[in-house]
């Protein structure tokens, strides 16, 4: 016989308390007697009032202890597994490969993931012959590792190769995927091996065909984690970076001490020691050092806790180096003076440096220039731009505030007196008036362009305070500084990284933190690298560009290792309630017979017997003088 909720057995201590209270109880029935003479003699003859006699005599106490024992055992939900022949069955095994499964309880112990793999292996090993199984890895996106197969050895081998990710898991999606397979295998049972440190898959709303095998240590997992990390660089280099450390240990545990170490590359620049109580959080704000070359900023907590993964965060700090801007076409003093105000750009007119942003004022181009280009009153070839007419008038354009080029500009209105009426394909209008697209943003084949569809001298834009801001934002966008979605050089695990190609057909090599290499070739549409399931630095190397991106967990839900409900230990929960035994010591199998009702019935019978005893005993339950 085993228990589904062995933690309830702690209530057995109540029995000890009952005995203690019995011995040291304050109230005793007082009985007046004529003389203690005979009682003293009897007491001495019987050898005093020793504990053994108390226990031997007090039938009521013994009955009450039995009743309490039975009730505690019932609360622990005892069950038996029938040892009869188990028929073959179909199983869909969902393995949680999320970051929290990497948690290790105790020093040198096995991680939750390793325990889960062991549990699945036992389940497969103990499955009756003829059984079929399907294996699904539940990461950010569920992946079917193996469809229904009767060869459980192959599934076992696949299981050996599965690695947990530094990511969150979408168990609900995994269950949905498994349920889709029930159409062909309606008798299949879905086993979800997880640490249940998620709230998304509620224990009480599981479908009946799903059994949740909780893999979590009985010890309360203590964990410190960096849950927030962000960088705000200044345009001229430097800036600030911010991070928040939380103690996600269960309440009641001791405050944890840790050291926060900040490194730029391999150079330690700061170290702070602090102490944090369970549930507490501590924010840190530091100055971002100015670096000339691209560097890796690493913040790590020096502490030993259940999950080491969330103790380190990294970011790529871009080196502060002026970009080159090649200014060609018709001369415009307003344009030149406005560009000269932008200190982070070197304006050149003659020789085109590599990777320079082109600013072209007027003219006609045979093709869209590679990289970034600001095209002022430039005609592009057909296919990219279709010119319809030249329209004169007084136009007061409205800016699209949602685009990085045109934000913050509505505060300074400007007028256009003559503009080209044209259509730019694959573009987004940034400023428009009377159905005229006056300024557009174009992104095609890894190239970017901002087209201004009027001559600067036909508008008062160069005189507007918006002009230098527009230029700065346009050049920043054209220099592709916005390529990181979660801050400069940093994203969260599972988020895609946009890939930048100089042109179609260009090859790009990606190196993962684990050292794996893969290659991509630029196609006609924008590409993204999505396999960001490992935390660390991803390196991208192309013919014309190379950059690094840091990927961090930064997921409070994954760092919080507490089981989402109150129970702990290894057990199986199903949609119909708790049914099966542990996933580790005994895989779900056979007929599970819960016995709690037997214990409750026995307790009730004993209670009845106690009542009868109290009524029937000579004292009749009443005090006697």
């Amino acid at each position, binding site marked *: 016989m085993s228990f589904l909720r062995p933690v309830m057995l702690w209530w057995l201590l109540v029995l000890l308390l009952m005995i203690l209270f019995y011995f040291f109880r304050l109230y005793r029935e007082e009985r007046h007697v004529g003389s203690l003479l005979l*009682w003293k003699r009897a007491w001495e003859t019987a050898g005093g009032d020793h504990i053994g006699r108390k226990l031997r005599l007090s039938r009521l106490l013994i009955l009450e202890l039995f009743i309490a024992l039975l009730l505690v055992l019932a609360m622990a939900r005892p069950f038996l597994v029938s040892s009869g022949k188990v028929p073959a069955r179909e199983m869909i095994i969902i393995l949680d490969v999320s970051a929290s499964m990497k948690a290790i309880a105790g020093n040198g112990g096995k991680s939750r993931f390793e325990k889960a793999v062991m549990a699945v292996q036992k389940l497969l090993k103990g499955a009756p012959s003829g059984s079929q199984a399907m294996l699904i890895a539940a990461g950010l996106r569920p992946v079917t590792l193996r469809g229904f197969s009767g060869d459980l050895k192959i599934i076992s081998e696949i299981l050996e190769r599965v690695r947990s990710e530094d990511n969150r898991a979408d168990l609900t999606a995994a269950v949905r995927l498994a349920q889709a397979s029930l159409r062909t295998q309606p008798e299949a049972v879905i086993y979800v091996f997880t640490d249940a440190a998620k709230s998304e898959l509620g224990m009480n709303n599981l479908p009946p065909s799903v059994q949740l095998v909780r893999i979590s240590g009985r010890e309360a997992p203590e964990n410190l984690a960096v849950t927030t990390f962000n960088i705000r660089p200044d345009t001229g280099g430097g800036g600030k970076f911010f991070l928040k450390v939380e103690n996600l240990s269960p309440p009641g545990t001791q405050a944890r001490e840790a050291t926060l170490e900040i490194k730029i590359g391999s150079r330690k620049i700061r170290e702070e020691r602090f102490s944090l109580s369970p549930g507490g959080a501590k924010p840190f704000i530091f100055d971002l050092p100015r670096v000339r070359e691209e560097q890796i900023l690493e913040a790590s907590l020096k502490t030993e806790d259940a999950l080491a993964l969330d103790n380190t965060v990294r970011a790529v700090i871009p080196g502060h180096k002026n970009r080159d801007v090649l200014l060609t076409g018709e001369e415009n003093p307003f344009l030149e003076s406005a560009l000269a105000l932008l200190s982070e750009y070197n304006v050149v007119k003659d020789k085109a440096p590599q990777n320079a942003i082109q600013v072209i004022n007027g003219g006609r181009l045979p093709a869209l220039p590679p990289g970034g280009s600001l095209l002022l009153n430039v005609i592009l070839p057909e296919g990219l731009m279709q010119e319809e007419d030249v329209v004169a008038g007084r136009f007061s354009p409205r800016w699209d505030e949602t685009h990085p080029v045109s934000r913050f500009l509505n505060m300074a209105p400007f007028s256009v007196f003559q503009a080209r009426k044209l259509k730019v394909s694959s573009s987004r209008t940034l400023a428009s008036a009377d159905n005229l697209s006056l300024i557009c943003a174009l992104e095609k084949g890894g190239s970017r362009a901002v087209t201004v569809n009027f001559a600067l001298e036909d508008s008062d834009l160069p005189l507007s305070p918006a002009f230098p801001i527009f230029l700065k934002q346009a050049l920043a966008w054209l220099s592709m500084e916005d390529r990181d979605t979660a801050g400069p050089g940093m994203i969260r695990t599972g988020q895609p990284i946009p890939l930048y190609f100089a042109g179609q057909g260009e090859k790009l090599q990606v190196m993962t933190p684990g050292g794996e290499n893969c290659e991509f070739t630029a196609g006609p549409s924008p590409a993204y690298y999505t396999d960001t399931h490992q935390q660390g630095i991803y390196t991208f190397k192309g013919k014309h560009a190379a950059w690094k991106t840091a990927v961090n967990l930064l997921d409070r839900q994954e760092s919080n290792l507490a089981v989402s409900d109150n129970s702990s230990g290894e057990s199986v929960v199903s949609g119909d309630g708790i049914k099966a035994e542990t996933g580790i010591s005994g895989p779900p199998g056979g007929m599970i017979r819960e016995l709690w009702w037997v214990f409750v019935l026995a307790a009730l019978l004993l209670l009845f017997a106690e009542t009868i005893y109290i009524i029937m005993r000579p004292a009749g339950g009443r005090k006697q003088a």
Partner: protein
Amino acid sequence: MADLLEPEFLKSLQKLYLLIRRAGPGVLPGRHPSPARGRSAEYADYRGYTPGDDLRYIDWNLYARMDRLMLKLFSDERETSLYLVIDSSASMGCSPRKFSSALRTAAVLAYISLAGGDRVSLASIAGKLSGYLPPMRGKAAIKRCLTFLDELRPGGATGLSGSLEEFSGRLHRPGLVIILSDFLSEEEFFTALKRLIYMKNRLFLLQILGEDEISPPPGEDITLSDSETGEKRDLTMSVDIMAAYGNALEAHTGKLSEFCMNTRSGFFRAGTALPLEKIILECYRQAGDISRAVS
């Protein structure tokens, strides 16, 4: 308390008296023959005349027939004094009907004795001689006896030894001393009893115990409180404790019984459940035995 002055009880006294009379000659009712020869009208024996004898008791008829001087002897008749000593300590009031049983028994014995022409004296002891009624004679004295008994209330320590010493000091004439008590006293009181015997008193110990003292009700864990000393003791009423208590009670009673047997005294243990008639009859029977044994 014992309702001794109630008409119902007074009627029952007369009934008990008649019951005792029907039971046969005994010691308690009426005048009692004395082993000494006296001057009563009842002829007892003859003996030869010796000089100095009272000439009035010479049987002249016998002298005429036998020509010998023979002296007539007559039996002497004396009144018996009955001393009823009632233990009125707190322990007597602890069990239900224990004290009232003692008082009723004393009242009946007093009535029967007074009706039989004996002198009756009453005393109550509770650590000391707390009450004393000097010897009285005649049926009319019963009212004083009953009033005395009715006014007694249990309280105080038993103190049998000192109380009986004090009581014996009041005795001027030997008689039958009946002590009504539970005798649940830790002190050694046999010396005081012996002194009463040495003073040529006949002794009868009537041990009155409550039913809860003879067979205590079972319980679990209780605190026993001594009604006299207030001493408390926590006790688990286990089977072996109950058995040991029974043995201790038997041993205590046996000791009293043995003492009485050795000193030709009477002893009877009466529970409160025992009817009054049976107690009185037993007293009467045993007191008769004592009297015969003594004579």
